[in-house]
């Protein structure tokens, strides 16, 4: 049995056995935090704490599912970085990628586990064996989560070896990789005009209905990439922003010979 994460322990301690029971305001209350929703001009969410009590304020002009993630994110700060004041900008919350402060990634992980706890999420995810945006939409409706946060949660699980990339007109914004995909598969900064994603972002093409086969070198600037094919599916997530799943279907791409070499080196 896998040990429960801090967020999952909170949910299990409240007897939560169904996604519909994840009432964030009430959960926050049990943790000593009150949640307020009001227009915020300079940030997406903030938390003010004093001793064992806190007030979390979330921008009510953001989409409702975005607000839910922000509450979870601030509760993550409350659990891990108790302090007097934390102010989070939109780019601090619910974005993938490793180039952000550790504290923001920790808060995001807490939020993801609180909104989509593994003990409820994994069985539901497994009932959708194909990693597609159609599956992401169905799961996000069950957990009342955004397409982006649900896609990140799926990509970071061991559901399917995949890389999830977010692009805007000026290039790649962030990406996350499944644990099974070796580090050497690092997506290109800019979209290849051959990719289907390019047509969605710049050509006004519709979102892909199903993953489509494409040469891996369209996505990865690496000498061996031309040997492989991957599956690609893109969905728009707002004005000038797209998410793409790159599904790694060739087992040879998953050979982590860099790690094997490092381990070998340590043994010597």
């Amino acid at each position, binding site marked *: 049995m896998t040990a429960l994460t801090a967020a999952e322990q909170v949910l*299990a*301690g*409240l*007897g*939560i*056995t169904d996604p519909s*029971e994840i*009432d964030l*305001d*009430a*959960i926050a*209350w*049990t943790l000593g935090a*009150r949640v*307020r929703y*009001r*227009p*915020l*001009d*300079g*940030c997406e969410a*903030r938390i*003010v*704490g*004093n001793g064992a*009590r*806190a*007030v979390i*304020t979330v921008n009510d002009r953001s989409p409702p599912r975005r607000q839910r993630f922000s509450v979870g994110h601030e509760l993550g700060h409350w659990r891990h970085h108790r*302090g*007097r*004041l*934390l*102010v989070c*900008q939109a780019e601090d919350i619910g974005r993938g990628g490793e180039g952000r402060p550790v504290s923001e990634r920790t808060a995001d992980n807490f939020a993801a586990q609180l909104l989509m706890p593994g003990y409820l999420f994994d069985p539901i995810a497994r009932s959708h064996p194909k990693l597609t945006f159609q599956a992401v939409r169905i799961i996000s409706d069950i957990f009342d989560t955004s397409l982006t946060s649900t896609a990140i949660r799926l990509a970071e699980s061991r559901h399917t070896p995949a890389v999830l990339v977010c692009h805007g007109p000026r290039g790649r914004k962030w990406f996350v990789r499944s644990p099974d995909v070796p580090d050497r598969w690092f997506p290109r900064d800019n979209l290849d005009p051959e990719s289907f994603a390019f047509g969605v972002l710049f050509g006004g093409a519709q979102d892909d209905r199903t993953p489509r086969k494409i040469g891996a070198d369209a996505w990865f600037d690496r000498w061996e990439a031309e040997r492989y094919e991957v599956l690609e599916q893109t969905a728009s997530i707002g004005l000038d922003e797209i998410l793409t799943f790159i599904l790694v279907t060739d087992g040879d791409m998953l050979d982590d010979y860099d790690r094997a070499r490092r381990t070998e080196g340590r043994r010597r």
Partner: protein
Amino acid sequence: MTGTKSDRIALARLADAFVEDVLNASDEDILAEVREDHPDPAAAAAQARGLFEKAAAAAGKGRLAAAQAALAQQRGPANVAQLDPADARRRLQRILTRDPEMAHRLTLAARKDQGQGLSDNDVQGLLEDMAELGITPDDDGP
């Protein structure tokens, strides 16, 4: 539960004695005792664990329901007077003078926000949050 206080004390003593008895028994003794009533101790343990988890979940759901009920009573606008924007900024400044950590955090946030600083609306909201937590300027003047 009904009964007098002395009855409850007696029951608690009896429960303590049972617990003490179980804790002092060896694993073999407990297994032997379980086998007297249950041919499969593992199944009995699983059943007991299931009952325990069910009771824990029920207690947890009770805590969640209590939180929901408390929130339903509390919801509504915070009872803080709308301050003149300049007064509100002075009030916030007085709090921050006393609290360097909080002042530092706000400076960092303002930098990330391209230095635009807090809007009047954000200052008012922040003061309301602080007031709810009992964070006010020492003199509590305007």
